[in-house]
């Protein structure tokens, strides 16, 4: 491979990992441009949206395109890519070595086991129930519903390929569990329990990131992220509303 191909591969892979890990688009473009500039490609241009990236090393060269299909939040990968890009800029890391490092980051596994994620989600749910003005009696039902709901979401995501359905079913499960808990008189405020329990599923971060992208001038990215967040919130609201329709 010639040098330019390697360099554009490095930039594209870095951008892809960052976008898939939920970094803001302006940060992705900034990182790609800095890396390209460090490899003496000052004419390089990048254009990132939540669903794909364009990158060209020069206006006379062919431009490269990558499609982004899966998006989640993974701060560890963002931190790793960031440190690699710093090494490139500050220490003049070789593009081939950088490509190897980035491939390692791209295939790295999550550092927390699934059971820890579930416990964290359950604790988050219980805490939010208190923070939103619930009583201590609401902690346990929110803890239970949040943990089971998060587990259900992970399970449904593996079973069903369709987007938004995992969130819909998970919030349905949460609603059923919360109503059951109240039926056996564990907990006091149904609303607080449900809001706490759905918090690990709610795309609050995406809403905020969408506004930040809009303010940075990335209108396409901001609007599309906002729509995605809205659809997810809609799926969650619908899942709980189905339960309310029956009681």
């Amino acid at each position, binding site marked *: 491979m010639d040098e330019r191909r390697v360099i554009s591969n490095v930039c594209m892979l870095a951008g892809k990992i960052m976008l898939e890990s939920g970094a803001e688009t302006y940060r992705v473009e900034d990182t790609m441009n800095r890396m390209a500039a460090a490899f003496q490609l000052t004419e390089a241009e990048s254009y990132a949206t939540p669903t794909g990236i364009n990158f060209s090393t020069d206006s006379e060269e062919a431009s490269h395109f990558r499609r982004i299909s899966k998006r989640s939040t993974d*701060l560890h990968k963002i931190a790793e890519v960031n440190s690699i890009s710093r090494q490139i800029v500050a220490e003049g890391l070789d593009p081939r070595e950088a490509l190897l490092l980035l491939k390692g980051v791209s295939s790295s596994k999550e*550092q927390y086991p699934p059971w820890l994620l579930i416990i964290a989600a359950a604790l988050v749910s219980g805490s939010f129930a208190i923070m939103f003005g619930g009583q201590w009696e609401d902690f346990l039902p929110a803890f239970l519903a949040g943990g089971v709901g998060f587990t259900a979401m992970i399970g449904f995501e593996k079973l069903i390929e369709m987007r938004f359905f995992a969130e819909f079913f998970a919030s349905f499960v949460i609603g059923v569990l919360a109503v059951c808990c109240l039926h056996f008189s564990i907990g006091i405020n149904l609303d607080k329990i449900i809001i706490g329990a759905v918090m*690990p599923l709610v795309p609050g971060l995406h809403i905020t990131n969408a506004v930040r992208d809009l303010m940075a001038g990335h209108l396409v990215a901001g609007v599309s992220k906002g729509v995605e967040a809205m659809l997810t919130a809609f799926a969650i609201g*619908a899942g709980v509303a189905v339960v309310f329709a029956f009681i």
Partner: protein
Amino acid sequence: MIFAQCITSFIAAAGFGILFNAPRKALIQCGLVGMFGWLLYYILVAEGIDVVPATVFAAMLVAVLSHVCAKLYRTPIIIFNVSGIIPLVPGGIAYDAMRNFVENDYFHAVQLSAKVMLLAGSIAIGLMFSEVVNQLFRKSWDWLKP
């Protein structure tokens, strides 16, 4: 009561750090940043200030603390401010708005959606404000330097 808010907001921010796969050594700092942000918001709201300005100030505090942590521990700032703003994020209201939409109560649903937009915007403003101050300091330092 404020003690309970301390503990729960710490758990919420650090727990979201785990869900977002934050580096292990940054989890406690994430929790602390989230806790201080939420405490400022909680105290301001308890003093009778509207939620939107309270969110702006709390987000500013989160941004400043994240800057300090990022400098101290040499990690990108996004790790700290993403987990730090989690307690402030209007996820609960977003969910409430959507539930009202699904239940055909458009009057309340539109009101709550507008609130969500305002709160998300104020978090973004708060986070950006600290970046503005940071740039201002750096640029004026460069300019004042002989």
